[in-house]
């Protein structure tokens, strides 16, 4: 029954992807990668909150609480919450800046604004390197789901099927399919969290063994320097994630972006339920083999088989939606930015090969230990945030030359990498902060020494009547 429900939901997701194509038969490249900016606030909301409730949130958040208590909750919850506010203010400007140049990717915008192919290549290459581990992380999460769904079967076979399903979403309708599947995923996920968390709380009241279990540990105070610096770095870095730019460009208007961001924090009210589930498991003898399996183990303890299939499908879809959006971010980075001059049709055709390659590499990496990718994943926000100074400069300052942005990014990335490889301890300070500070300093210094002449800021251009 559990497997039947799971398979039925996966089939439904595929049907939704096919349906999302209705009325949009032959699409150009911009439509394929960014849905031609046709999404209203509702579809944009579901697409963008998919990043919040990824497979890492659904499995990793309760798993972290189960294994190590609450010390990480402050920075994890804090950065996602502040990121919604950052997107509320910065998102509309990213949308307008992209619209000004007809951009579909971050490097598109930097190339056209700063008139620099080198800058385009630098941002495209670093973005691809930073996005690569996300695929592996999603497949590792999916393996965990499949280990509970079909314990005896080959994980490679099942994750391979999941990879094929993701590939189908991408090929069928590009970002439009991701958005439609994201709606299904979020409805199922909300239902699953409310169901498992609600039943855990109800059972808790009936048999409150938990009181003894959780009364003992004192509240662990997190490392404040690390927590606060991580919240700031990741909240602002969130606005520079390549797939988030694609989501922003898919919005119909800046108004749609702001409306969606108003509602986004409410969506985070499910985190207490995930946390309560972890504590319920601790106090009721639910002992999963891996901490990250605790949410699914609790679902298995409390729900009938069919409902467990639904919960597992929700978790799996949360991985597949992220996977498909990363595929749609990496595809154009290669076919628009690394390999210039392809026609719109060529970009779509070659993107499919790039996506297939990305999925295959991620799948095989997850089937190995995935250690390298897991380590690289730690670098994600350190690196992704380095484009922010250049973007803010493009918005506001006409004098900034491409060399200043290139110098800033290279200096910032190099410093972060050196600190990370040297396992530097900076009193708990997030390593991305010194990298970002150096980036800004280099950008300012190069601009002061060799200012650009004849440039115009994005804000000035938008204010100038056409």
């Amino acid at each position, binding site marked *: 029954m559990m497997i039947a429900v799971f398979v039925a939901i996966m089939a439904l997701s595929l049907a939704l992807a096919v349906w999302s194509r209705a009325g949009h038969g032959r699409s150009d490249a911009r439509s394929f990668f960014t849905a031609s900016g046709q999404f209203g606030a509702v579809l944009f909301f579901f697409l963008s909150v998919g990043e919040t409730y990824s497979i890492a949130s659904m499995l990793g958040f309760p798993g972290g609480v189960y294994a190590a208590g*609450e010390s990480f909750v402050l920075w994890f919850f804090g950065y996602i919450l502040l990121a919604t506010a950052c997107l509320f*203010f910065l998102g509309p400007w990213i949308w307008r800046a992209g619209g000004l140049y007809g951009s579909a990717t971050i490097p598109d915008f930097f190339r056209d604004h700063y008139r620099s192919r080198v800058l385009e290549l630098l941002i495209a290459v670093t973005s691809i390197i930073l996005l690569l581990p996300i695929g592996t992380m999603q497949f590792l999460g999916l393996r965990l789901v499949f280990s509970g769904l079909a314990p005896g079967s080959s994980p490679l076979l099942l994750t391979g099927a999941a990879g094929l399903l993701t590939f189908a979403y991408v090929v069928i309708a590009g970002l439009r399919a991701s958005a439609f599947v994201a709606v299904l995923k979020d409805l199922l996920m909300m239902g699953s969290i409310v169901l498992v968390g609600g039943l855990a*709380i109800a059972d808790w009241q009936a048999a409150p063994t938990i009181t003894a279990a959780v009364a003992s540990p004192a*509240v662990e105070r997190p490392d404040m320097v690390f927590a606060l610096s991580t919240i700031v770095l990741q909240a602002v870095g969130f606005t520079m994630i390549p797939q988030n730019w694609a989501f922003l460009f898919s919005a119909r208007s800046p108004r749609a972006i702001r409306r969606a961001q108003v509602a986004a924090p409410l969506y985070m009210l499910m985190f*207490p339920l995930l*946390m*309560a589930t972890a504590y319920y498991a601790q106090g009721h003898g639910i002992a999963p083999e891996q901490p990250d399996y605790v949410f699914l183990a609790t679902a298995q303890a409390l729900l009938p088989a069919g409902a467990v299939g639904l919960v597992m499908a929700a978790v799996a879809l949360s991985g597949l939606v992220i996977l498909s959006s990363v595929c749609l971010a990496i595809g154009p980075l290669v076919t628009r930015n690394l390999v210039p001059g392809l026609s719109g049709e060529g970009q779509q055709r070659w993107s499919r090969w790039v996506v297939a390659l990305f999925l295959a590499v991620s799948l095989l990496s997850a089937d190995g230990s995935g250690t390298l990718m897991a380590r690289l994943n730690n670098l994600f926000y350190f690196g992704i945030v380095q484009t922010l100074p250049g973007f803010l400069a493009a918005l506001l300052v006409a004098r900034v030359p491409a060399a200043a942005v290139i110098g800033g990014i290279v200096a910032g990335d190099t410093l972060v990498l050196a600190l990370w490889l040297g396992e530097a301890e900076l009193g708990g300070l997030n390593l991305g902060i010194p990298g970002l500070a150096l980036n800004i300093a280099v950008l300012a210094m190069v601009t002061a020494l060799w200012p650009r002449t004849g440039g115009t800021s994005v804000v000035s251009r938008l204010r100038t009547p056409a």
Partner: protein
Amino acid sequence: MLRHLWPVAAGLLLPAALILAAALLVPAHWPRFLGISAASWCLFACAPITSALLALCYRLGGDHEP
């Protein structure tokens, strides 16, 4: 100037200050509910407050059109 800055103060700086307050000001000995510490409950309470503040910015802050 103030007309442009108050939405950022209300929608971004105030939520940041609330998160900070939840982390620093809630006494560690306050009782837990559903196993979750009072500090974490205060942190979670920042979400609807942030949503309300962003709604206020959306309604009263103008469109910020260039």
